[in-house]
């Protein structure tokens, strides 16, 4: 029936108007506007973050806008975006800084403008936050390195492939790696070189290092894109057997390599869950609920034994249970 279709359309339209909050007065009216700032939209890790936050927005009826620099981790671009959004004055910011220091004054401005800020993934210091959610790059570098060192019995020669030298994530992950290194006296760091967080440079650097070092017992890369490049270089050189490669992020093709036993492991701090929980925290805060100031998520080491859920697309991943996460704090 054409009419019933029309009526349905009107009904849906009205529901949408209600949902986007244009009808004032309702208690906890849904549709609060929330700007979700991410630092990168090109890699699968941040895609998972985005999908996680979109799931929360759908579940809680928030009107979210994803804001991310087109050039990954670009300070100048995120600065402009934050300034623009302070003017637009949404109900809340869910915020990942491209650089926690550089963005500190901007979060101050948001504070002054009275916009509640939920921070996740990288903590911004000296500002008012409703809540901080996540692990951090230092911890993930540290935990991943320890797991790798234990795999080779706490003794051996190790290569570290760094991220973009200027990126704060790369510096923090390296610092975490170095802390672990200082705790294992029989682990020798052969060299630490940059693969620029990218596969091709990492592959080429590893090829060169394989010439330089006839004996390498393990390799850790600051992200999975590079770890996959390292695996490729080792495979081509016929030296993949017995050399565990550790990465960070658990991107899909790294998960596949781990499943196939070609890559040793990767560390994840669940971008999907962080994105989800941060937006849930925003919704609950806006609806007058108490939200813990600190919600920490454990680093998960993903190896051949537990990799299966990471082979799922982020759309199919189950969302974490808020109450359980809060209870675990």
């Amino acid at each position, binding site marked *: 029936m054409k009419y019933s279709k029309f009526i349905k359309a009107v009904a849906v339209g009205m529901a949408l108007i209600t949902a986007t909050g244009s009808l004032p007065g309702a208690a906890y009216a849904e549709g609060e506007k929330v700007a979700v700032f991410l630092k990168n939209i*090109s890699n699968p890790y941040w895609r998972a973050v*985005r999908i996680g936050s979109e799931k929360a927005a759908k579940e809680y009826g928030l009107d979210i806008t994803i804001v991310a620099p*087109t050039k990954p981790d670009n300070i100048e671009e995120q600065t402009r975006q934050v300034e623009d959004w302070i003017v637009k004055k949404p109900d809340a910011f869910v915020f990942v800084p491209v650089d926690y220091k550089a963005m500190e004054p901007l979060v101050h401005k948001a504070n002054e403008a009275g916009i509640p800020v939920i921070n996740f993934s990288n903590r911004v210091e000296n500002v008012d936050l409703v809540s901080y959610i996540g692990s951090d790059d230092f911890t993930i570098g540290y935990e991943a390195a320890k797991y790798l060192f234990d795999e080779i019995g706490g003794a051996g020669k190790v290569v570290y492939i760094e991220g973009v030298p200027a990126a704060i994530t790369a510096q923090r992950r390296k610092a975490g790696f170095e802390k672990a290194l200082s705790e294992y006296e029989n682990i020798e760091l052969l060299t630490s070189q940059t693969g620029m967080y*990218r596969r*091709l440079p990492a*592959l080429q650097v590893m090829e060169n290092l394989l*010439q*330089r070092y006839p004996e390498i017992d393990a390799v850790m890369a600051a992200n999975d894109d590079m770890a996959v490049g390292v695996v*490729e270089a080792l495979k081509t050189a016929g030296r993949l057997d017995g050399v565990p490669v550790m990465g960070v992020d658990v991107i899909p*093709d790294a998960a596949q390599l781990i499943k196939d036993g070609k890559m040793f492991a990767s560390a994840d701090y669940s971008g999907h869950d962080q994105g989800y929980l941060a937006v849930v925290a925003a919704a609950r805060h806006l609806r007058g609920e108490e939200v813990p100031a600190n919600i920490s998520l454990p680093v998960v080491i993903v190896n051949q034994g537990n990799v299966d859920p990471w082979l799922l697309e982020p759309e199919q991943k189950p969302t974490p249970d808020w109450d359980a996460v809060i209870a675990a704090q």
Partner: protein
Amino acid sequence: MTVANSQETMPAKAPLSENVTWLLSRMTALATLIVALSFASPYFFQTGNFVNILKQASFQFLMSSGLTIVVLTAGIDLSIGAVLGLAACVGASFLANGQIFYGVGSALLVGFTCGLVNGSLIAYLRIPSFIATYGMLWIAVGLSFVFMDGQVIYGFPESFRVMGSGFIGPIPTPILIAAILLIIMVITLNHTKLGRTLYAIGGNRNAARLSGMPVKFWEMMAYGISGLLAGFAGLVIIARTGAVDAGVGNDLLLPTIAAVVLGGTSLMGGRGGIVGTAIGALILAIILNGMNLLGVDTYWQIGVLGSVTVLAVLADDKISKHIDMRG
């Protein structure tokens, strides 16, 4: 001796002494670098390491060869990395389903189309090349983001991956591909009317136009070829790495320009050539390889690359001034 031979067939080009000078200066730089690194690291002068260097230089050469043509016409193509990325992303979407023909075809088509758009804007609408191609850079980056939606495409057929990571006999395929491309380009640039036209456009545009050369058409085609070769380089790169995401072309532009400049092709146009770019790609690969072998601190590596490039431009400037004065 292609450069010397080319002399007879290229009236629009600079005198013989100049070509020999720049080629010699590049060869000397290359030789010095090899000798120095052989002393500095016992791991450098090894067959395995040379194969590595050649392989890495081959990728650089594939990226820089198209740019060389554009630079010869006194232009610049800043969109190379981005177009390479877009072409690789589009191609990969077919390749992951095992459709090699469509994958390769679409990547080349995307590259060529972007290049032709650049070329039309520059040759016919007279938009400065650095602006037109800078615009294309962002268009291609934007399209890549939209197309990929933050995903990684991986799992290409092995028969395709041979192109980037396989061997033909004992020789890694990318080295062979680069060698063939080098030969084709040497012949095209030095022994065909097209080559003469490209040099003439960069050397003296007005003279070229007055002598009846279809300047606008070939200037446009220079960018078309640059885009096509960027698409091709994108294919070889993803055949090597086995995966692609929207950021695959990031950070490829500067080394690509560096190899051309290190090879002695003048940014003013009309002077230099593809053999120089091959040498430039080798120099770049050797510097990176050397820094890896010597364990140069990460923070320094990027600075070293930048400095070498600037020094090369300065040297080039001095040499050409010297030649001009002898005039």
